[in-house]
């Protein structure tokens, strides 16, 4: 693991008052490979190692720790700080508050919508699940089943196949029916699909969500920066959800996404059941990424 690699780099450091640059540069080589293997975007790795280098060079060698432990601690602390603070709540503003789920195909938006609805219901809210994915075969049925499984009302759309109109009507209906939160499940889309990105922007303008959650698969590789940045540039993401963290991907996408979308990672998906939603723990994620 990283600590062992650091130990090897630093075993020649003896009786020095501060961490010398040669040792640090060699340590950074190991750190760079570890982060790349963890799927952190290569540009983000470059920025990160530069930051760590600044912090490490000239640090006095504290007698309580070995130099290896010191550098590892700098890396871990820096990673944890970048990944973001502890529990950041959902912004539920408006009557009803609107949460818009967005992201690439298959990232886990529909399942997360169900988890979120259950989570909010358990906190005394009255959520409404709204199917805005009119494209994927049986997507509406999927959300209907999800809603019934978590016992949360589902917005029936009849023959309506206009996602913008569906969203608008759902929010209007929610007011009358006293739902205080509306969750808009949208279709997966590519960040380079101009028409579909415009569709999301129109839904946003019509419904004024207080949360636009970018739902990302935690096993995403280098592409994470491209898609996250485009969604953020075009919509203004307010929070990130990382899914499938019950897998064994190192999850470097977390750092990549956080670096380009400077918004909190609010929630994580840790399984396929509706209870499998957790708050994000930056310390655990830092350890996971470092391997």
């Amino acid at each position: 693991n990283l600590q062992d690699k650091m130990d090897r780099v630093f075993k020649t450091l003896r009786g020095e008052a501060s961490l010398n640059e040669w040792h640090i540069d060699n340590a950074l080589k190991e750190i760079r490979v570890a982060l790349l293997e963890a799927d952190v975007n290569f540009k983000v790795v470059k920025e990160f190692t530069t930051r760590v280098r600044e912090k490490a060079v000239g640090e006095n060698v504290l007698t309580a720790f070995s130099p290896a432990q010191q550098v590892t601690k700098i890396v871990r602390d820096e990673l944890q700080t970048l990944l973001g603070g502890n529990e950041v709540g959902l912004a539920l503003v408006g009557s009803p508050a609107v949460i818009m789920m967005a992201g690439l195909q298959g990232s886990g938006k529909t399942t997360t919508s169900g988890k979120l609805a259950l989570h909010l219901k358990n906190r005394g809210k009255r959520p409404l699940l709204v199917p805005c994915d009119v494209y994927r075969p049986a997507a509406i049925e999927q959300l209907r089943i999800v809603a019934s499984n978590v016992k949360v009302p589902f917005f029936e759309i009849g023959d309506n196949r206009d996602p913008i109109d569906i969203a608008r009507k759902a929010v209007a209906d929610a007011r009358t029916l006293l739902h205080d939160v509306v969750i808009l499940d949208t279709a997966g889309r590519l960040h380079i699909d101009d028409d579909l990105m415009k569709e999301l922007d129109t839904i946003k303008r019509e419904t004024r969500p207080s949360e636009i959650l970018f739902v990302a698969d935690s096993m995403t590789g280098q592409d994470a920066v491209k898609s996250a940045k485009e969604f953020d540039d075009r919509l203004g993401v307010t929070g990130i959800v990382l899914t499938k963290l019950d897998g064994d991907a190192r999850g470097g996408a977390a750092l990549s996404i956080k670096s380009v979308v400077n918004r909190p990672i609010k929630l994580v998906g840790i399984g396929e059941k509706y209870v499998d939603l957790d708050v994000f723990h930056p310390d655990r994620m830092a350890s996971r990424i470092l391997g």
Partner: protein
Amino acid sequence: MTPDLPIDKHAIDGLEEGLLGADVGAELTMSIVGRVEGRVRDEKITSMDRLGQVIRDETRALIPERQIATIDLSRARPFVILVVGVNGTGKTTTIAKLAARWKGEGKSVLLGAADTFRAAAIEQLQMWADRVGVPMVKHKAGSDPAAVAHDTITAAKSRGTDVVLIDTAGRLHNKAHLMQELSKVRRVIEKELPGAPHETLLVLDGTTGQNGVNQAEAFLEAAKLTGMVVTKLDGTAKGGVILSIMRQFDIPVKFIGVGEGADDLIPFDPQAYVDTLFE
């Protein structure tokens, strides 16, 4: 790259970043860069054009020759294909594409809805079956996937169907009980038709990073993979992790998915793939 400019460090750095950014992975990237640098020295390469060719050749060399084989359906009848992979990669949609392709070639196709777990999984495949115009075998939601696979095979045998495509639930490869379930589905298929499944395809999301290697390794063990389909390459991701998978496990890529429609499937072409990797 502009032709006939001298090669400098920027060119090699650009190569390294291009490979890393394509999810080729740190180790394989360093290996490719090392080989390219060696050839630049040995062959005294001075033109950027020639460098570009060397880079493509070295990358192309990582893809085993026999990868070029596509699926030969004449080997067996019914020809049974089991489709597996982690959650959300595009298995169900890929089955629809394969069904459309082979139906278009005059084959009779039968689908097996063996994802009995996920909400509306059966309905989703049924809609595709109706759209493409092929029959489907299904049981109630929550029933045993192995039973669906079994009944699909017996139906295919009695109808003289050419191709059977069996859809399975997405599953994370680190979940032992789910991988055991998959092994059981496979055993039931083998028992019902010796030699089947004739192909077991891993559907890999093109945006996946190095975890793709772990996925391939685990599914190879549990389900004896014979090929891969890489999806969502119509996006900006390059799917470079397949180079490591092909090298480490010798699993060929059969098709790539380039969209959400029934026609959005292309046979894997190693040279074309390498070219898009560097554009």
